[in-house]
Every structure is written in structure tokens, then in C-alpha cells.
């Protein structure tokens, strides 16, 4: 029985809803489910012989290889070598990158002089320079750390100076109008204002660093995840290869989580 409207009209119908879709619904439980599901299908495929163990070893085989690494104590040796190179190279590269990026952003002479140099060197794959680095810094840790350092340096420089360029001019003018010193304006207005861009640059520089780490370790290293993967590949020990790749993925995830924490800590003012 349709109800009567105020105009005595019985042709009443609700306005159709058209605002649905196009917005993000957080589904936190889904991603672990996808991971577990994929691995389960993979395992099942291997067990039934649907996936050949030569083409792709079962996850359980890869996990056994991983346990083997723990038992022989080699895990720690590989991991320590890789993490040391990564942490030292990335930290130095990032610190230098932020310094040079700030200098380029703040001083016109440096911008005019250095920005084109940075632009010219940024796209060069740093791994191509590894032989040069070996000549300069030796076959040991120096050349590997240098490769990662340079890989992290350039994206950080660019993220930093474009971050500074995007700091609200109004805030800088405010600082000047209150007679703040140059150093205070840089430290209290420009650096925090550029922080979102710098942290976004971290994500890029970290993934570049991991790629370079593995590449450098594959070219010349006794220990390290890259070396482990290379040896495994040379022996066609595919389950070891998968275990090594999975370790890289976990390292990447862990670092990404750390950066997320840093963003929460330093950028909580964004809400």
C-alpha cells in the first residue's frame, strides 16, 4: 500500500543512492589470508606433482633449506654481512644525501652548480660502477658499502631538495617577520616542513639499497644473502635460492615497517 505524500501523491519513491564505491575500506585480515592461501596452493601443487620440483621447489623444501641454514650457523654469518653493508651504506648515503640536498635547496650557487650533476648521475645504475669502486675502495667491504652509499645518496638528495622547495613560503616569511635567525628558520621551519618528502625518499632509497646489496654481493662476496643466492643458483639448489629470496623479502618488509613507525613518530602532526 503506497503512502500518500503531502501533495496527495501516491507515486512516492525514495531518491536512489548513488554515492557508493570509490572509497577505501580497510580489510586488515585479507593480506595474511592471501599469503597463506598462495603458499598453501603452491605447497599442494608441489605435493601432487602438478608443479615440478625442478621448476619450483615446495615451500616446505625452501623452509627446510632455511632451517638448515640456522643449524649450520650460516644464517647468522650471511645475515650479519648483508645487514652490516646495508645499514652502513644506507645510513652514510642518506646522511650525506640530506646534507647535500639541504645545501642545494638553500644556496643558489650550489643549486646551479650541483643540481645538474646530481641529475646526470642519478640515472646511472650504480652497480655498473662497482668495478671502479673495487679499484678505489678495494675488493672488501669498501666497494660494496660504496655502491649502496651512492645508490641511497642520489634519491635522498632529490627528495630533500624538492621537499624543501615545497615548504610553505608563507611559513618561512612568517619566520622572517618575527626576526628568527637563518639557522632557526632552517632547523624549525624548513627541515620539519621537508620531513614528509625526506621520509618518502627513504622508502625509495631503501629498496634501491637492497637491490644494490644483492647485486654487489653476487659480484664478489663470500658471505651475504646475495652470495648465498648466487651459490645456490650455481648448484641449482632451487630451494636454497627460494629461501634466500624470501629472506630479502622479509628484510624489505621489516624496513618498510620501521619507516612506517618513523612516519608515525615524526609526522603525527599530519593526523
Amino acid at each position: 500500500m503506497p503512502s500518500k505524500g503531502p501533495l496527495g501523491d501516491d507515486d512516492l519513491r525514495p531518491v536512489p543512492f548513488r554515492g557508493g564505491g570509490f572509497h577505501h575500506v580497510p580489510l586488515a585480515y585479507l593480506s595474511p589470508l592471501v599469503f597463506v592461501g598462495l603458499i598453501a596452493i603452491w605447497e599442494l601443487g608441489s605435493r601432487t606433482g602438478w608443479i615440478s620440483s625442478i621448476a619450483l621447489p615446495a615451500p616446505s623444501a625452501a623452509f627446510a633449506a632455511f632451517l638448515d641454514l640456522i643449524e649450520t650457523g650460516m644464517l647468522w654469518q650471511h645475515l650479519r654481512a648483508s645487514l652490516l653493508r646495508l645499514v652502513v651504506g644506507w645510513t652514510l648515503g642518506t646522511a650525506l644525501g640530506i646534507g647535500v640536498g639541504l645545501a642545494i635547496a638553500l644556496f643558489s650557487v650550489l643549486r646551479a652548480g650541483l643540481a645538474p650533476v646530481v641529475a646526470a648521475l642519478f640515472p646511472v645504475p650504480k652497480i655498473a660502477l662497482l668495478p671502479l669502486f673495487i679499484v678505489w675502495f678495494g675488493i672488501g667491504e669498501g666497494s660494496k658499502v660504496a655502491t649502496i652509499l651512492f645508490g641511497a645518496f642520489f634519491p635522498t638528495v632529490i627528495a630533500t631538495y624538492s621537499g624543501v622547495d615545497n615548504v610553505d613560503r608563507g611559513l618561512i616569511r612568517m619566520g622572517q617577520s618575527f626576526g628568527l635567525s637563518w639557522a632557526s628558520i632552517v632547523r624549525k621551519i624548513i627541515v620539519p616542513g621537508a620531513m614528509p618528502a625526506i621520509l618518502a625518499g627513504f622508502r625509495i632509497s631503501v629498496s634501491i639499497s637492497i637491490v644494490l646489496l644483492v647485486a654487489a654481493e653476487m659480484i664478489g662476496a663470500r658471505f651475504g644473502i646475495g652470495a648465498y643466492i648466487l651459490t645456490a643458483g650455481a648448484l641449482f639448489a632451487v630451494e636454497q635460492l627460494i629461501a634466500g629470496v624470501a629472506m630479502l623479502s622479509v628484510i624489505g618488509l621489516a624496513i618498510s615497517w620501521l619507516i612506517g613507525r618513523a612516519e608515525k613518530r615524526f609526522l603525527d602532526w599530519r593526523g
Partner: protein
Amino acid sequence: MELIVQGVSHRYGPTEVLDDISFTVGDGEIVAIIGPSGCGKSTLLRLVGGLERPGEGAVLMRGAPPDRSLNPLTYVFQDFALLPWRTVEGNVSLVLEDHALPAAERRAVIDDVLERTRLAEFKKALPRQLSGGMKQRVAIARALAVRPAVMLMDEPLSALDSQTRELLLDDLLELWLRERFSACYVTHNLAEAVRLGHRIVVLSRRPGRIRELVRIDIPLGERGPTTPELAQLQQELWQLLRDEALAADRELADAV
């Protein structure tokens, strides 16, 4: 302290922005500057406070700034210019940190200005948690903290909705009655100009020239939103500006 603007002209490249502007801001006086959009009001204010150098003419100060003034010419910006990563307290603290004040005294100044702008309970809030009106009150508190001789206010109420604007206008009036600050108050809102201005400088469209200098003799404390003389004056000012605004509007349309 008196602020004297003497024959200031300014151009950006080939565009003449301001032409021979002269006026003074006396002690405890609010001078409102009105004019059509694009007439160079904000440029004028930047020149007055030394954020830009005038092409010709000079901006001069006479007499000593008030006792212990840390920043004689202090701006209040239209977009508030608060650091989003600092709390209310931290934003006020920012402008004191470069001065050699003992920490206890700095805290006392911060508490005092937040009390005077009724923000004491929002000390720890971040700007994003505040409404527009409250943000501007933080900016006013920050300006008061450095004991300015002249406040340079660049459309301080223009980013606010009309109800908040009315409330903050009352706040400003009350503040003036208590503190008798001097101010150069740039606005395009004629109602604000006639409520707050002891004198009103009317600028023409670009290049900005002084069209009229109006003095309002009604004391600030006796002015209300419905005072008939002010309504009358506002009407007269609108007549004066109407043609300029219309012409300025067309010019802008042509320029695009």
C-alpha cells in the same frame, strides 16, 4: 611609536603596483587599508613591515618601541601561518626562542598571552585540531608575545566564516580596548574597516593610489554592528569603491 609611510611606489617588472602612498600610523591607532582586489594592499603591508623593499619612497619609524618589545613590527597573516608540527604553546614559543629569555620567563609570557586570548586550555593542541577562528587567535597570541609596537594585519579574518569573523572581530575590539595596540589593518571587508579603523585609507585599483583618507571619530568602544553612522559610512565607502572594484574585475578578466 609612530610608523610613517612616505611616498612609497612599487612595481613588479613592468607592472606598477603602488603609486606614491603616504600615511602614518599613530600610537594606539588602527589604520584600516581597503581597496578592490589586486590593488596592492598586501604588497603595501609587506613593504611596511620590511618583508620587501619599496621601489621608491621609504617606511620610517619615529620614537621608541614599547618597553621590552621583541619585534616592533609584527604580522598577523590571513592564512594564520602556524607551524602544523608544533602545538599551540610551541607556536608561541617559536617566536621567543631566538631571544635570550630565561626559560621561566618564556613560559610565563606564553601562559600570559594564551590566557589573554582565552586559549589556555588548548595549550597542547595541534593546529589541525583547532577551528579557523581558534587558529587565528593562536596567531594573535603569538603576535602579542613579542610585544609589538605596530601589528600588521593582513586580512586576518578573511579566511573565516562570517559567524566566526563576527566573534573574532569582537575579540579584537576588546583586545584593543584593553591594550591600545597600534595596527595597520588590511581588509577588503568594509564592515571590518569601519568597526576597527580610527582612520581608513581607501586605495584605488592597480596601480594603488590613495583615493581617500577617512577619519572616524566614534570611539571604538561605542561602535557596534548596527551603529547607524557606521552603516552610512560603509555605504559611502562602497559607493567610492564600487566603480573601482568593477573596473578592477574587468581588468583581471582581460588579463586572463
